[in-house]
C-alpha cells in the first residue's frame, strides 16, 4: 500500500510542476528538491514508527482526492462568506481557503508600522530576504508528513514583526476547507518575531463541507531574543476530516511562546509540536485539551529540545473521552548536555466518560545534563467521587454534577488561554461541546455555496 502512495503524492508535484514553479522565486527550488528526495524515502509514516505508533494514517492517505493547487478566485467579501463569533473582541481576522491566503483579506502584506501580515506566496516577492532567512529553516528530514508539506505547499499565512514592535491587535487566522469533492489541502505558515517583538495569534480550523478532507498544515515559528508569542489553536473540523498539523518552534534567549491547542471535533487529528529552545532563558508552554467522542481519534505529539541552559518548558495535555473515541499523547523531553538548570514539566491527564473510550499517554525523558528539574506524569480515570457526592448532596443531579466536574477538569487548560474574552468564548464552546450541543462553532455562519 505504502509503495503505491509515494508515487501518488510525488506525482502531484512532478505532474503539476508548472503550477509549483510558476511565479515563484528561486528560493523554493532547493526546498522542493530536498523534500522530494526525503519524502521518496520516508513516505507516509506508518504505525511501525515509534512516533506514529498509535495512529494509522494510511487509510486516510490511501483515498482519491482532488488536490487544490490554484486558488479559486472568489469575488466575495469575508463578511459575506464567514462570520465567526469566537472573537467579539478587538481581534482582526484573516482567512485561508484550502491552504491559500484569501485574496480579499483586510491585510495584504506590509503594514504602515513595518509589520507584515499576508500571503506567504506574495511575501516571497515582497519580503524575499526575510522569507529566505527563515522559510523551511525548522525542517528536519525525519518525518514524511513534513517532507510532503515542504513538497506541496503553495501558500499560507506570513507574519513578520520587526524588532521592538508588537502586532497591534490579536490576529485570528481562520483556515477554511471548502469543496464539492474529497479534497487534499496543504498549507505552510511562517511566523517571524524579531528581537523584543510580540504577537497574539488565534488559529481556527473549520471544515465547511461534508466531503472527506485531508489537510496537511505546517507552521514555522521563530521567536528571537525576548520575543513573545501567544498562540491559541481551535480545531473543529468534521468527523470525516483528517487534520494533520506540524508546528515547529525555534526560540532564542528569553523568548516566550505559549500555546494552547483545543480539539473539539475532528475525525482523525494529529498534532505535532517540535520545539527547540536554543537560547538561554527561553520559556515554552504548550498545553492541549482534546474532547473526542463518537469514534474520533486525536493524537498529540510534543517534542521539546532543551539545547541552551536556564530554559523552562511546561506541557499540560488533558483529554475528555466519550463513546468509542481514542486519544494518544506522546511527550518527549530532550535535555542536552549543555542545558544545565533546565526546568521541564509534563503532565497528561484523561477523563474517560465511557468504558469503550481509550487513551495512550507516553511521557519520554532523555536527559544528558545533571543539574535539571524534570517531572512527568500521566493519568486516566473518572471524575472524583468525593466531589461528585459533595455536589449531589447540595441538590445537584448526578448528570449535572458530572457535567460540572468534567468542565472543571478542562479548566486547568482553558485558564491558560491568553485573552479573557477569548477564554470565555472558548469555555462556552467547550460547554456546548460537552453537552453535545455543538455542531459547528456557536454562531459560525457560512453563506458560501
Amino acid at each position: 500500500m505504502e509503495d503505491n502512495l509515494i508515487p501518488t503524492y510525488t506525482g502531484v508535484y512532478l505532474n503539476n510542476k508548472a503550477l509549483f514553479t510558476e511565479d515563484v522565486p528561486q528560493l523554493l527550488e532547493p526546498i522542493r528538491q530536498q523534500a522530494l528526495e526525503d519524502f521518496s524515502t520516508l513516505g507516509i509514516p506508518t504505525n511501525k514508527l515509534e512516533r506514529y505508533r498509535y495512529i494509522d494514517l494510511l487509510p486516510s492517505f490511501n483515498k482519491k482526492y482532488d488536490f487544490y493547487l490554484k486558488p479559486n478566485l472568489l469575488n466575495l467579501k469575508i463578511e459575506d462568506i464567514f462570520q465567526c463569533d469566537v472573537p467579539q473582541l478587538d481581534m482582526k481576522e484573516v482567512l485561508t481557503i484550502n491552504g491559500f491566503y484569501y485574496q480579499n483579506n483586510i491585510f495584504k502584506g506590509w503594514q504602515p508600522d513595518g509589520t507584515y501580515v499576508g500571503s506567504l506566496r506574495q511575501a516571497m516577492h515582497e519580503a524575499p530576504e526575510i522569507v529566505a532567512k527563515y522559510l523551511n529553516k525548522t525542517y528536519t528530514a525525519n518525518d514524511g508528513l513534513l517532507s510532503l508539506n515542504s513538497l506541496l505547499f503553495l501558500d499560507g499565512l506570513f507574519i513578520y514583526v520587526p524588532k521592538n514592535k508588537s502586532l497591534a491587535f490579536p490576529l485570528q487566522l481562520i483556515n477554511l476547507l471548502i469543496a464539492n469533492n474529497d479534497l487534499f489541502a496543504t498549507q505552510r505558515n511562517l511566523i517571524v518575531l524579531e528581537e523584543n517583538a510580540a504577537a497574539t495569534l488565534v488559529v481556527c480550523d473549520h471544515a465547511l463541507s461534508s466531503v472527506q478532507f485531508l489537510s496537511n498544515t505546517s507552521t514555522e515559528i521563530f521567536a528571537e531574543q525576548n520575543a513573545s508569542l501567544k498562540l491559541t489553536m481551535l480545531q473543529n473540523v468534521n468527523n470525516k476530516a483528517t487534520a494533520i498539523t506540524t508546528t515547529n518552534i525555534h526560540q532564542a534567549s528569553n523568548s516566550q511562546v505559549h500555546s494552547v491547542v483545543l480539539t473539539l471535533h475532528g475525525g482523525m487529528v494529529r498534532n505535532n509540536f517540535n520545539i527547540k529552545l536554543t537560547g538561554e532563558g527561553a520559556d515554552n508552554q504548550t498545553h492541549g485539551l482534546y474532547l473526542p467522542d463518537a469514534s474520533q481519534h486525536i493524537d498529540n505529539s510534543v517534542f521539546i529540545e532543551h539545547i541552551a541552559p536556564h530554559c523552562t518548558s511546561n506541557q499540560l495535555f488533558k483529554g475528555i473521552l466519550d463513546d468509542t473515541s481514542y486519544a494518544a499523547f506522546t511527550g518527549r523531553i530532550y535535555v542536552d548536555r549543555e542545558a544545565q538548570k533546565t526546568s521541564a514539566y509534563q503532565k497528561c491527564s484523561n477523563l474517560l466518560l465511557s468504558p469503550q473510550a481509550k487513551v495512550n499517554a507516553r511521557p519520554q525523558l532523555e536527559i544528558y545534563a545533571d543539574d535539571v528539574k524534570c517531572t512527568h506524569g500521566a493519568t486516566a480515570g473518572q471524575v472524583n467521587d468525593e466531589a461528585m457526592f459533595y455536589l449531589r448532596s447540595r441538590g445537584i443531579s448526578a448528570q449535572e454534577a458530572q457535567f460540572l466536574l468534567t468542565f472543571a477538569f478542562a479548566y486547568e487548560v482553558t485558564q491558560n488561554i491568553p485573552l479573557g474574552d477569548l477564554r470565555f468564548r472558548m469555555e462556552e464552546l467547550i460547554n456546548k461541546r460537552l453537552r453535545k450541543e455543538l455542531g459547528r462553532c456557536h454562531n459560525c455562519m457560512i453563506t458560501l455555496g
Partner: protein
Amino acid sequence: MLVIKNLHASIDGKEILKGINLEVKAGEIHAIMGPNGSGKSTLAGVLTGRDYIDVTEGEIWFEGKNLLEMDPEERAREGIFLSFQYPVEIPGVSMISFLRTALNEIRKHRGLPPLSSGDFLKLMREKQQLVEMDAKLTGRSVNEGFSGGEKKRNEIFQMALLEPKLSILDETDSGLDIDALRIVANGVNKLHSPQKATIVITHYQRLLEYIVPDYVHVLYDGKIVKSAGKELALELEEKGYEWLKKEVDTVIE
C-alpha cells in the same frame, strides 16, 4: 421530622451501626457524641446517601417519606443538609455557578421559579454576612485554597443559602479556632427556627457551649448507649468516655 428505626449499616461487610433508634422533631437540636470510631460519621453518611455504606436493616423516615429510597440529591431537595467534616476542593467549578445550580434545583423542587442573577447575588451577599465570610471567597472555585476555617464557614454559608429543614453538622468544630467557632455557631443559631431541626455531631463538648442542644446522645460501638439533656455533654467533658464504655461493656458481659 426524622425517625430512625433499628438502623444497621455496614461498610465492606463490616457492621458499623448496630441498631440505632432516634427521633428528631422540628425545633429540636440533637447532639450526637461519642469516641472515635463509634459510627458518628457513618450515621451522617447514611442520612445523606453515601453509596459505599450498605444499610442492612432498619428504616429512616423523613417528613413521612422513606429516606433510604432517595438519591443524595433528592434528599437535599427534600431539605436535608450536611455540613461536611472535610469539605472537598473542586478547582474549576466556580462557587457562583455551583451555588446557583444547587439553589435553583432546590427551588424547582419546591415549586419556585429560578432566581435572576441580580436576586441571586443579593441573596448571596446577605447570607455571606451571616458567617462573616470574605466576599472574595465566592469569586473562587469551590473551597479551592480556602483555609480550614474558611471551608467550615463556607459550609454554614451554603446552609444559610439553601435553607434546609434538617441540618447535620459533622464535626464542624474540628480545625476551628475559638473566634471562628463562635462565628460559625452564631450562624447556626441564627438559622435555627421552630420549623427546623439540627443534628450536631461532635467529639468534644466545646461546640455545645455555643450551640445548646435539647438532647445529647452518646454513640458507642454502633449504638446509642445513653440519651439525656444538655447536662450529659458536661458530664462527658469532665469524665471522658471511659466511664461510659466501662458501664456499657459491663452490661454486655
